[in-house]
């Protein structure tokens, strides 16, 4: 370490402060979270685990049970698709509004800044950012819980929950993509006398679109995991079945359901990865 010509290291308090803060946070968190590793080797706990594992094997593969589970499995996929579609509908306009380069600064506004157009753009930008931050900071499960209360059990609250929570995430990422496109093609178009619409259509969209699609597909992968779980609060899909089987101590059914979930998630991953590989 430390070659001859490396500059002399300046002493910095940062690593020490960071280490101290880390140690303190860890110690406090371990206390608050009641971490007790002894519980893991406690005979009673181990007995519970053994009961669980014994109950799990073999997985329940009775035809009538499998037939019953086809519907929730399909529902899980459908919730993820419609949920992601709603997320795009929510996230796209908010993402545009939350992009500083579209709203109030940068190459698209070179003459407009002088005319104080940012007075219009800036408030819209700020409001869109705030809405996106609320949508995505509240986990989809909490949204689902609230929507189940509002519109009742079934896939509908699941769709809404994914739409709202993922809309917040997509909107934020869309705005980041828009803000980080290469400005040079936009400037060229601008200099050649293109209108604002022209700059957006021929400069911005072609650069941003592949990343948009790719990130949206990635979110779809996450949505199928989420939609499988939202059932735990009554929002349809496989999760509802897992929760029921767990409560009834039918662990062989749980194993079957987990295997179905694994297959679904893997299938969506493969489809999405193939499309993304072609895009980028």
């Amino acid at each position, binding site marked *: 370490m430390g070659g001859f010509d490396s500059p002399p290291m300046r002493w910095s308090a940062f690593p020490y402060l960071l280490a101290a803060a880390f140690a303190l946070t860890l110690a406090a968190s371990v206390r608050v979270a009641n971490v007790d590793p002894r519980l893991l080797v406690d005979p009673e706990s181990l007995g519970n685990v053994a009961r669980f594992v014994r109950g799990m094997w073999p997985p329940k593969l009775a035809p009538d049970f499998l037939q019953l589970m086809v519907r929730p499995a399909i529902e899980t996929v459908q919730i993820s698709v419609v949920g992601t579609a709603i997320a795009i509908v929510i996230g796209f306009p908010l993402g545009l509004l939350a992009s500083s380069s579209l709203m109030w600064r940068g190459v698209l506004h070179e003459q407009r800044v002088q005319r104080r157009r940012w007075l219009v753009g800036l408030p819209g930008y700020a409001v869109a950012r705030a809405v996106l931050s609320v949508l995505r*900071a509240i*986990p989809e499960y909490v949204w689902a819980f609230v929507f189940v209360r509002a519109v009742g059990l079934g896939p509908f609250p699941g769709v809404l929950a994914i739409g709202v929570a993922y809309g917040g995430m997509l909107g934020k990422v869309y705005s980041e993509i828009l803000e980080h496109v290469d400005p040079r093609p936009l400037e060229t178009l601008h200099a050649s006398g293109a209108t604002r619409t022209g700059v957006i259509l021929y400069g911005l969209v072609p650069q941003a679109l592949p990343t948009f699609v790719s990130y949206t597909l990635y979110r779809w992968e996450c949505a199928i995991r989420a939609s499988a779980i939202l059932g735990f609060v009554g929002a349809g899909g496989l999760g509802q079945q897992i929760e029921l089987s767990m409560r009834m101590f039918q662990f062989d059914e749980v194993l079957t359901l*987990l295997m179905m979930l694994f297959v679904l998630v893997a299938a969506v991953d493969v489809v999405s990865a193939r499309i993304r590989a072609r895009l980028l």
Partner: protein
Amino acid sequence: MTGGGARVAAVPRPRTAGWLTAAAFVVLLVWSYRGTQIDLGALVGGEAMRQIGGYLAKLFPPDLSAPTLRAAGVGAVETFAISFVGSLLAVLIAFPLALATDRSLLYRGVLYEGRPPAGARRAVRVGVYAGAKAVLNVLRTIPEIVWALLFVFMVGLGPFPGVLALGFHTGGVLGKLFGEVLEDVDPRPLEALQSTGASRLRILLYGVLPQAMPQFVAYALYRWEVNIRAAAIMGLVGAGGLGQRIHFAISLFLERELLTLILAIYVIVTLVDALSAYLRSKLV
């Protein structure tokens, strides 16, 4: 991505494939829309919208009485603790498993050129690789909420099963991500170290890890942001934190208290996001 430099002329991509994919997605969407039996017409300006609006109206104003605020504060601290310890446990689980899935350390690649391990040695190492991969797959496939149910069943109610659940699931996710980082490190420094006669442990310590560490830290911080959200819902199955209180508030129709708790989630999640972004900018 990192384009292959040897490509002479870009082959024009068939446009029809793109249109077919788009058409397939439209079909998928229509099928899903019908399958979920939702009615967007009813949502926009219909009965469902009134229901949601009516429910949201009941949430206001948030209950800001001292006991509720205290409950929200305690819940938020507990949620933070679960996410923090859970993420750390995940790193502890992921790190050794990721090393065990690094084939270039085990039996192939530049470090074994000319003298790959043979026979039983190779079989053992391939076995280690396959075993670690399988463990990571199981850890990752089982969602954190199912792990939480399992650990509640094992060690009882409280935040500790939440910590274990986050640690196991995220351990699987991080193990996979760490493994990808390890397989992608630049092999040239490793070869240079090897040519000086360094042992494999030293190659790992001075060649592989210095390259991989910034990515490891970035991924761990990213998963911490995911875990603070997950920790906020662990309580729905009895594993502590804000989720447990949210569960009570919803079940007991305490809507105004519910809003206070949701606001607490917003605050703690935003805080962790900002902290993580700050640490990433400092460390990576």
